[in-house]
């Protein structure tokens, strides 16, 4: 016995206002008259009906496997016969079947048509794909009737269009494995026809460990869990929820677990259905570690752990969340996260923007994240960006403004600009197609790549949709605004730009040098071309002709836009994003943030919101997205809503019902820390007091979670550890660029890399300070005054060296190669950073000198406690303390003992995962 839910499901493909996914609308109307399925109508040889290519023949061929990827749907076709992949290009397929040099149909002798004869032949080798149907079958008859009628094409003007599709039941709750359900699929056409298309659909299960589905749409329950079975027909994609409870603790038998927030309520509602019992709420230690790492990307300090554990206030967790959200590290880390999605990379801006573009981009975003500018406003500043800051700014003024941001001496504040144009100026954003892919990835969480070449196999998008969506971006261009002025500026700057004499890299480096010293140089700019219909647009006309496309922009699944009505076609696009019922904009962001906190999204992968990829908890996603919009896209509201829920604060300890649950948020899932976070965690855990303070104060420059050199520098400076831990390159529009998976190289690095050893024992690090007086430490100056003098000497030497190099560079001006010039610039940057570091350390030492010596742990037990607090955010258990004390006793000497302990703690699973 099973409960099924009958309801209408609108496949929202061509419906004018698109409801995301399969919006469920209950309907009391029983469909007036449903045409029985083709398998029945074409049963009898006397059938008079003429089947349609779109509605019957091509879907049937898809079902028979003809248009599959490995057969005629392959890009090279098969045996000289090519069909569109998944059969949605009616025109091309018609040409291939009927009009090609070797037509696959013979209207005069239908039975001799290849698509009938070969596929029904018993002769081996007659058809590479083997026998697909019997001669007296309804399938054979259907195709044969179409050929007999003259194999008519699809008439786009006259033929009815696909409206929607319903699948029944919409949700199935099984009781035991082996139970089966026949799905029924009904298609609605614009002429009012309603047809049972069950025998013409493709079916797919999203998890064959839970349920399988056969070609006829019969679902068989396989095992415990929940998933979706998806039906595909024409442009319709409809998922059906299928579940078999994991335990008997369902409905009223479910234990009483209080729902603290709306999020908890929605999560528990789902868990109750599938008999998964949620884990308890985690400990304070776990909460502090988890929330700090997730919200700010930074490990709590030992002092912070002690204070939090000592705090007796009942609201301390919520108060901590507020505090974390106000820290500089929150802004630094989430700017990095947003930069990943937006693709901020200096490397991609090499030819189109000044050498500081990556930095400017980061800083522009950072200011807004820190001020909690609402998400839609941040996005508007990017989506609607143009280079010139006012309509009457001319090209020369624009170049002057750009120079003001780039010059070394008192640069102007780039972050004050209303818009940030670099998103559109990247090397991998040149064509409209690339812009459309990046846009839909970043702001809609939708992958359109498939539809670039064929109908999306798991979603409603066709090539038509893709091409019309790309039309929004046809007029978004970048280039040099005024060549004459550019020439004059170059002449004035005295830079050689003859491509026969110098390479591009050298030209860029030279221009950059002039700009840094305050000289005005030409810059590329982002602008919107006038619409093609505009009069006298000679240049534009030729471009349009060359591109050979006159398309009407059309938002995904929505309305067409009259291009000429807008100076900037991105305006209606931005308006569309902001519409309350936009099916993607808020959901994509909410889902990505959720995925950050829970390891998996409500839709997973988080950047793949296709119709077949149904959310694991639709109500939860609906609620969060609607409330996010309701709260004017307030990012910190969203963070609080998630982090303050019990659902986020559950323990990683599982019970027998939820131990295998990874999609329904019933317990915390241990996950490897992201690259930057793991690197920073090692640095923080081993850092001395002054360094910790410096990092907390300015994480943007001092931490890996902040502005990373590899994105803001052109010299491909890459931190080995970050690369090994899977920091994204930011080159392709996919969340999967970041890898949080463990690897052998990572483990080898943590265990045995010189950099790790140096980090653990670095001068002024924690170990250095606490072992200074321990036996086994080589005596060195532990005198702060002497250390201060050393640092000051180091700083002086550094300044001297920088002076020398600069003088040398000046002397060789014009003679050095571009590479050499770049190297010098990079060195200068590094030296400056190093000097800033030294200055900060000197300041810290001075103030430490003022306050007297730092408090140091005294006993072995205190040392061990401190090491645990720094790495695990908790005190050691009694056993752990005993083990560590024992080790310290047997170690060669206490200094070695504590060093080994720190090394071991850094190499545990507990350290490298968030849990």
């Amino acid at each position, binding site marked *: 016995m099973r409960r099924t839910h009958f309801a209408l499901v609108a496949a929202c493909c061509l419906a004018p206002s698109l409801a995301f996914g399969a919006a469920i609308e209950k309907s009391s109307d029983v469909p007036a008259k449903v045409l029985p399925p083709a398998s029945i109508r074409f049963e009898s040889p006397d059938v008079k009906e003429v089947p349609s290519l779109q509605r019957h023949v091509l879907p049937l061929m898809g079902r028979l496997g003809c248009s599959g990827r490995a057969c005629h749907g392959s890009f090279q076709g098969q045996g000289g016969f090519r069909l569109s992949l998944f059969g949605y290009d009616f025109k091309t397929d018609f040409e291939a079947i009927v009009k090609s040099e070797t037509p696959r149909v013979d209207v005069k002798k239908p039975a001799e048509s290849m698509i009938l004869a070969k596929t029904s032949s018993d002769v081996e080798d007659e058809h590479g794909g083997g026998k697909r149907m019997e001669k007296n079958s309804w399938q054979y008859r259907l195709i044969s009737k179409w050929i007999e009628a003259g194999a008519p094409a699809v008439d786009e003007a006259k033929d009815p269009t696909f409206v929607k599709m319903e699948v029944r039941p919409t949700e199935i709750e099984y009781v035991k494995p082996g139970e089966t359900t026949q799905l029924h699929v009904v298609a609605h056409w614009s002429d009012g026809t309603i047809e049972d298309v069950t025998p013409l659909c493709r079916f797919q299960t999203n998890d064959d460990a839970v349920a399988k589905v056969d070609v006829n749409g019969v679902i068989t329950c396989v*095992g415990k869990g929940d998933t979706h079975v998806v039906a595909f027909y024409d442009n319709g994609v409809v998922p059906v929820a299928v579940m078999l409870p994991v335990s008997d603790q369902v409905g009223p038998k479910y234990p009483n677990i209080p729902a603290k927030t709306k999020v908890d309520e929605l999560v528990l509602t789902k868990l109750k259905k599938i008999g998964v019992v949620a884990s308890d709420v985690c400990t304070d230690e776990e909460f502090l570690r988890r929330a700090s790492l997730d919200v700010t990307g930074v490990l709590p300090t030992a002092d912070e752990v002690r204070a939090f554990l000592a705090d007796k206030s009942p609201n301390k967790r919520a108060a901590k969340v507020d505090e974390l959200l106000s820290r500089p590290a929150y802004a630094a880390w989430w700017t990095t996260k947003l930069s990943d999605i937006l693709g901020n990379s200096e490397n991609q801006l090499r030819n189109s923007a000044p050498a500081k573009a990556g930095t400017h981009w980061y800083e522009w975003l950072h200011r807004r994240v820190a001020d909690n500018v609402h998400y839609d406003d941040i996005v508007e500043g990017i989506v609607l960006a143009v280079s010139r800051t006012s309509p009457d700014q001319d090209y020369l003024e624009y170049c002057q403004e750009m120079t003001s941001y780039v010059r070394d001496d008192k640069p102007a504040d780039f972050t004050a600009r209303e818009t940030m144009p670099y998103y559109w100026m990247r090397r991998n954003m040149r064509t409209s197609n690339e812009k459309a892919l990046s846009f839909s990835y970043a702001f809609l969480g939708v992958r359109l790549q498939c539809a670039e070449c064929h109908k999306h196999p798991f979603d409603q998008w066709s090539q038509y949709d893709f091409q019309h969506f790309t039309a929004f971006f046809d007029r978004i261009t970048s280039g040099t605004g005024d060549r004459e002025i550019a020439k004059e500026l170059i002449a004035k700057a005295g830079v050689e730009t003859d491509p026969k004499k110098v390479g591009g890299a050298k030209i860029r480096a030279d221009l950059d040098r002039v700009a840094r010293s305050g000289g005005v140089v030409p810059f590329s700019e982002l602008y919107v071309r006038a619409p093609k219909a505009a009069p006298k647009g000679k240049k534009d006309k030729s471009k349009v002709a060359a591109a050979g496309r006159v398309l009407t922009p059309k938002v995904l699944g929505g309305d067409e836009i009259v291009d000429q009505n807008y100076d900037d076609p991105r305006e209606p696009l931005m308006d569309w994003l902001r519409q309350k019922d936009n099916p993607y904009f808020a959901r994509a962001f909410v889902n990505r943030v959720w995925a950050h906190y829970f390891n*998996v999204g409500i839709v997973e992968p988080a950047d793949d919101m296709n119709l077949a990829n149904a959310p694991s908890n639709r109500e939860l996603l609906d609620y969060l997205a609607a409330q996010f919009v309701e709260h004017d896209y307030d990012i910190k509201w969203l963070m609080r809503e998630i982090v303050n829920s019990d659902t986020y604060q559950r323990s990683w300890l599982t019970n027998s019902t939820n131990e295998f649950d990874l999609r329904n948020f019933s317990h915390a899932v241990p996950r490897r820390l992201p690259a930057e976070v793991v690197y920073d965690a090692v640095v923080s855990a081993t850092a001395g007091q002054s360094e910790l303070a410096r990092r907390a104060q300015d994480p943007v420059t001092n931490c890996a979670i902040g502005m990373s050199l590899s994105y803001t520098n052109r010299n491909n400076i890459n931190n080995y550890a970050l690369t090994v831990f899977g920091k994204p390159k930011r080159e392709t529009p996919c969340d999967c660029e970041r890898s949080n998976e463990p690897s052998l190289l990572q*483990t080898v690095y943590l265990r045995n890399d010189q950099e790790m050893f140096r980090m653990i024992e670095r001068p002024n690090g924690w170990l250095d300070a606490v072992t200074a007086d321990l036996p086994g430490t080589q005596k060195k100056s532990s005198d702060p005054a002497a250390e201060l003098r050393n640092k000051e000497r180091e700083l002086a030497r550094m300044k001297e060296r920088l002076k020398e190099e600069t003088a040398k560079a000046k002397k060789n001006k014009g003679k050095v190669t571009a590479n050499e010039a770049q190297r010098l610039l990079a060195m200068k940057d590094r030296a400056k950073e190093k000097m800033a570091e030294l200055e900060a350390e000197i300041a810290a030492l001075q103030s430490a000198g003022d306050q007297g010596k730092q408090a140091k742990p005294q006993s072995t037990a205190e040392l061990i406690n401190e090491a645990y607090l720094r790495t695990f955010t908790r005190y050691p258990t009694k056993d752990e303390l005993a083990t560590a004390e024992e080790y310290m006793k047997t170690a060669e000497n206490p200094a070695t003992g504590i060093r080994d302990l720190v090394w071991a703690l850094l190499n545990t699973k507990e350290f490298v995962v968030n849990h």
Partner: protein
Amino acid sequence: MSQHRFCDGLKRRDFLKVGALGASLTLTDYLRLAKAGEVKSTAKAKAAIYIRLGGGPTHMDTFDMKPEAPVEYRGNLKPIKTNVPGMEICEKFPLLAKCADKFTILRGVSHTLAAHELGSKYLLTGNRPLPSIEFPSLGSIVSKELASPPDMPPFVAVPNTPQGGGFLGLQYGPFSTNAQPKQGQPFNVRGIGLQGGMTLTEVNRREQLLASVDNTFRSIEAKSDVLSGLDEFSEQAFAMISSKRAREAFDLGREDPSVAKRFGDGEVNQSALLAVRLIEAGARFVTLTTGSWDMHNDIWTRLDKNLPMVDQTLSALLMTLEERGLLESTAVIMTGEFGRTPKLNQRGGRDHWPRAMFVVMAGGGMKTGQVIGASDDKGQGPANEAIAPDDVATTLLTTLGIDTRKEYHTNTGRPIMISRDGKPISKLLG
């Protein structure tokens, strides 16, 4: 590593990877491919060495000379005879000329990607690059398909390579030495061997301590991919770090000085010796890179330096592999990302030219001492049928017993054959 599991405890691929193509079709498909894929297993090779001449080596002045062509094509260098009748190579390759029976030259290898990055990706992955997919490099495929000893990295790059695991994931990426060994100098590789002045006893002691403090998750370890993965890598890393085999394989100081001398001391020479040692110890794929073949100007001076290096390195490599009984089981390939313009430019150089290039292949049970394919009379393109980089890669993988029709799935669930278009070059496979 998949994160998606449910009640049966089995690993499940992301649902997208299960494939939306219909169960019956997939099966038919599979059977058909299995039938078509019945390539005779000639898998004598167990490992491969890839010598990458980065920058695009000239074919006209090395392995595909055109002495009959006009002077502005044929250039300054002359061909010499080799120990294989009719097979001629550049006069700067006297050592290779004496062992030409040990390798095969592919000529008229051809593609259309004239940019370094794209060309390199094509040759190193065997798949024409696509913007939407990062194909795995040959080394990553080999390390995924063939098992290697737990204490040896399966795929090593000396000093590094632009290609990694691609969509297969980081764990199949190369272990990069980040440095090239030089004759008579100590050589260290990041993370290999005992670092920081530690002894094996100390490492073992730390290992025990680590085991005793790493127990928090014991109850859920078996159910978590991440935790069990970390454990697995931890064991492997310890094996590698503490293993004598790995340490000694990377330690060129242990090599017979006369053998080291045979290799000489150019940029890449000692790296080739390191490759032999690594393969001997169980590594599956070693990539060597020498990146100074982009000769837009002044080609003759630069070839004077580069050609003797190739001559000595490759001949010493083949000789040493043979001496140690490894030549039959080690496939060797040497090539760049494209050839260079047949006609010299005005700056006395040659520019990028993907339409005609060469590939040298040896060992691995391949039929050597022959020339396969040909370029036209001026070296501008294939004379007859072109050999595609896909074919070269497929051949290399076939010698290693890898079925290139096998399908992988990208992280977006797209099914991808190891090589969609490649056909094994039958004349090479014995």
